[in-house]
């Protein structure tokens, strides 16, 4: 089978899974429903792998023409190059693992089949997003994953206490995403205006080969609109507050959607449009600073969060910020590299936290945990690996990817480098805090809960182990040149440069070996120091995160998420609600309806006046008749 034929199949399998589970899932045994969904995703993964291995040139596969009006031609087509296939591999690969994990994690949930329907649907949408051959298809997937995200965040809508809150979180996610989507949509319009097409191939050919470029302002507008879309989906300032709230969804969802795949869509978008961003340096600046700010802000907030998933959520936001810094520096392959490693270790961490929560019978507050390391051994080890990977522990995957970013930042400007280092340091601090508080010390919840603590089943631990291995060895995907010389290094770099439009034309200057070594040294030092201090603070001294009331000023600031939600509430929500009330009660009900009522009343009132003319007396009738005649004659005389 040719790649053209395989590509639609890639999409078809998750869709079939979703369809079967959606229609007949209720009647299927749980194990069948779960395995079906997992299998479908895994088959997709295998197909993706086949395509990936056989792919030389970008391949476009037309499904059908969606809209064909004279000026507007939009195809439903798929497009495979190394970038999209790489993303597909991550999505289906990590996706399969998380599906597998979910089979165990969700086993007690009554919405089991529904969960897998949504998951498969998500995979499908995500694949459309990365495999679509034009921005229009991308937008389809873009919104599709938004819907799935909405459905999955609000999955436990019927919860006794938090049902409505879960719904609220889902709604918030959807709305904030939509704000970004509007930006993206406008970007699309602008591209249609300046290029007349949304096909990647045609746009890239125009920009790269024909050198037909819109003027600077237009290019800035296009790229900034695309970036606004990216901030929505990838949770950057100012649209990031939905992601922590999105943790209301089941943990596998957080792992799959809100850590490994969906939130990287924004990065994919920027990398996909790299040739546009290349000519829009000002936008890149903005991306750089937004990414930097997000990275620091989120890391700071994560310092004093007590919900295990919230910590990881802010960590995700922070890491995404880091990746955007890379994008701002035009280090696209590095960004993808970090996306990949991040997918591994963040999925691992989330799944690990899921396993912890599973063990804790649903408790998420780290203040109630502690000393779990012996009770759930596999989870503990894998979680530790994850923590080390994200903190940049030497030779773990995160170490390489993060280091590359730091290297480029250093090359760009020292200030940015220092700021990034601060962010990275904070990452290490809160991750070790999390790790130690959860797994070391003494168990702090009731005996009842302690009694129930148990290791998860194999279906859950197996993905953890696989991911742990990947987190460790993920670095080999793009080894820096200083360790090995020759074909082994910069695998991902070469891969992406091979047939992804635009990337091959960008030549980032790698820092020289000495600098690289120094930077690595700094990173390692930071990581180890933090580890050391943390272990003293939390392990030796057994400190426990203090209650909210006892926090110092900066801690409260961090704990309260820097009051972003409150700020948005005052800036947007409250005024709109006020407008809503004013529009309804004053403008609509009072003024506009009042005018109508007023007219009706005036007419009725004048009717009453006119009626008074009719007195019932014959004399007056005749009087008026005479007046009428006199009037007639007067008119005649005047006219005369």
């Amino acid at each position, binding site marked *: 089978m040719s790649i053209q034929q395989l590509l639609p199949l890639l999409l078809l399998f998750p869709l079939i899974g979703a369809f079967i589970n959606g229609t007949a899932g209720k009647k299927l045994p749980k194990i069948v429903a779960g395995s079906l969904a997992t299998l479908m995703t895994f088959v997709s993964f295998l197909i993706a792998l086949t395509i990936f291995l056989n792919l030389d040139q970008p391949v476009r596969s037309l499904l059908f023409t969606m809209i064909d009006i004279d000026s507007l031609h939009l195809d439903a087509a798929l497009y495979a190059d190394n970038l999209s296939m790489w993303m597909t591999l991550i999505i289906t690969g990590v996706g399969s693992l998380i599906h597998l994990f979910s089979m165990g994690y969700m086993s007690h949930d009554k919405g089991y089949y529904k969960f897998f329907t949504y998951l498969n649907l998500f995979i499908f949408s995500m694949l459309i997003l990365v495999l679509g051959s034009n921005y229009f298809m991308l937008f389809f997937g873009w919104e599709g994953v938004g819907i799935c995200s909405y459905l999955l965040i609000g999955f436990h809508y019927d919860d006794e206490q938090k049902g409505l809150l879960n719904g609220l979180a889902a709604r918030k996610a959807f709305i904030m995403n939509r704000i970004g989507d509007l930006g993206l949509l406008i970007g699309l319009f602008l591209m249609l205006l300046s290029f007349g097409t949304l096909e990647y191939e045609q746009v890239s050919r125009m920009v790269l080969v024909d050198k037909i470029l819109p003027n600077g302002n237009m290019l800035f507008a296009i790229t900034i609109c695309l970036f606004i879309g990216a901030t929505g989906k990838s949770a950057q300032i100012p649209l990031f507050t939905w992601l922590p709230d999105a943790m209301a969804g089941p943990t596998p969802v957080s792992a799959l959607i809100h850590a490994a795949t969906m939130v990287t869509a924004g990065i994919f978008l920027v990398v996909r449009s790299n040739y546009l961003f290349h000519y829009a340096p000002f936008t890149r600046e903005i991306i750089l600073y937004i990414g930097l700010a997000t990275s620091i802000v989120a890391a700071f907030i994560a310092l004093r969060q007590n919900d295990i998933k919230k910590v990881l959520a802010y960590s995700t936001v922070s890491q995404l910020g880091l990746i955007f810094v890379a994008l701002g520096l035009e280090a696209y392959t590095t960004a993808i590299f970090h996306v990949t490693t991040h997918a591994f270790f963040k999925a691992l961490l989330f799944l690990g936290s899921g396993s912890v929560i599973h063990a804790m019978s649903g408790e998420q507050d780290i203040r109630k945990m502690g000393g779990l390391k012996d009770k759930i051994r596999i989870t503990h080890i894998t979680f530790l690996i994850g923590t080390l990977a994200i903190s940049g522990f030497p030779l773990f995957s995160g170490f390489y990817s993060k280091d590359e970013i730091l290297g480029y930042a250093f090359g760009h400007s020292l200030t940015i480098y220092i700021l990034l280092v601060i962010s990275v340091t904070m990452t290490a601090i809160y991750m070790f805090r999390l790790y130690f508080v959860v797994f070391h010390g003494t168990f702090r919840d009731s005996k009842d809960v302690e009694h129930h603590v148990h290791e998860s089943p194999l279906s859950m631990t197996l993905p953890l182990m696989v991911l742990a291995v990947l987190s460790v060895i993920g670095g080999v995907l793009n080894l820096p040149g200083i360790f090995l010389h020759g074909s082994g290094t910069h695998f991902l770099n070469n891969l992406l440069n091979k047939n992804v439009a635009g990337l091959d034309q960008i030549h980032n200057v790698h820092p020289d070996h000495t600098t690289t070594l120094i930077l690595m040294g700094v990173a390692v030092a930071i990581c180890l120091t933090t580890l050391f201090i943390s272990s003293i603070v939390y392990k030796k001294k057994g400190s426990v995160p203090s209650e909210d009331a006892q926090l110092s000023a900066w801690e409260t600031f961090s704990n309260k998420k820097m009051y972003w939600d409150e700020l948005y509430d005052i800036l947007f929500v409250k005024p709109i609600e006020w407008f809503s009330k004013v529009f309804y009660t004053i403008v609509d009900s009072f003024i506009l309806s009042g005018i109508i009522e007023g007219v009706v009343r005036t*007419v*009725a009132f004048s*009717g009453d*006046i006119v*009626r008074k003319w009719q007195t019932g007396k014959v004399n007056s*009738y005749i009087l*008026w*008749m005479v007046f009428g*005649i006199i009037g*007639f004659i007067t008119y005649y005389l005047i006219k005369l």
Partner: protein
Amino acid sequence: MIALITLFVTGLITLFVAFTRKPLLVGIIATIGLIGGLFGLMYESRYGIRLFPDYHGLNFDTTAVMFSFICIIFTTLLVWTGFKPLTENENHAGDHIALMIFSLCGALIMTSFTDFFMFFLGLEILSIPVYVLAGMKKSDALSSEASLKYFLTGSFATGILLFGIAWIYGSTGSFDLLEIKNAILNSTHNSSLLYVGVLLVLASFLFKIGAVPYHFWSPDVYAGSPATIMGFMASVVKIAAFAAILRLFTDTFDSISGVWGPLVLGVSVLSMFVGNLSAIKQTRVRRLLAYSSIAHVGYALLAVVTFDSVETTTYHYNVYYYLLAYGLATIILITAENIINDESDDIENWVGIARKNPILGLFIIMAILSLAGVPPMMGFFGKYLIFSQAIYDYPYIVAIALLNSGIGIYYYLKLIVKVLRKPYEAPKFDKLIICSLQWIVLIISGVLLLIGGFLLLLF
């Protein structure tokens, strides 16, 4: 001519037959006579036969036949619908019907006169029986009051009319319309006598059709008279008067339309406003209909003043069609009044008719919608014909007229709502008794109203 004689004889026979005190017989004879008159009319116009070839006082030309035709039909329908109330008193079973037929004779003369002699006679033959009919309910003080009011104002208007005729005669020296027309055309400078005379005649006409400010009698008289008579006044009398206006003003005095045209226009606008505004808060159905009729007169007058932009037959048709639609709708509502048969004539009596008798309700709603000018009822097409002509000369007036239609819909709709809503004493309510004659009237008028527009669309 044949029709006129047939009808006159029918009236006489009816009077005499009434002595037998058999209302049914009276009714049958009257019906036969009326239908005979109808056939006479058609026969005459079809074959162009003239009974008295040397007599020129009356001329049944196309317009006259047209207007006479609907006058007779409306009278027939009204006799049927009001058959029971009209013959309530067995001693006088034939009187009222005979009077109506006599009045109809006057109406026929009004449509076909060629000189002021016949015109004057026709007008009086038309009016005097109606004065009597308005006071038909002898024991009812309101009925006699209505009668008196109508009589006093009516005879006053007659005085004005005659005064006007005298002045026209004085300036032109003739009573014959053709001669007057020629006299006006031939003289280079017409005296003020003529103009004032024309205006006086106009005033009395406006009185007859009930246009503002000569309308005051109509709400009172409509409200006081029995429903059938009110229907007669609103349809037959009005149609006859309009026929006369067309003949007199647009044919004879057309060359001096500069004098009376603007006045009619002003009266038309005034009538619309006064009629529609006053109708809004009415609580009595017949009063409401009276005011609505004032408004309708306003619309119809618009057609009278737009005569100079189109050929004669067209605007004759316009007025004719409009009044036909108006008359049919009024007859349906009058029938409903007769069916409800309530002395107090309160609008609340109409509440829930559609629930008590859905088909009657349907007819009533159709009639009201037609009056309001909502398609596809005939009333809409009437308005369409008039307004689409009038807009050539007077776009602003048409705008005002349409605005008035908007005001009108308010009270029409309120009436519809009353008809449609639940009766107060639910769930059991007294059944409405509808006799077969009334059914016939309802169906004829209703069907005409409905297809009058759509059907003519095809032809």
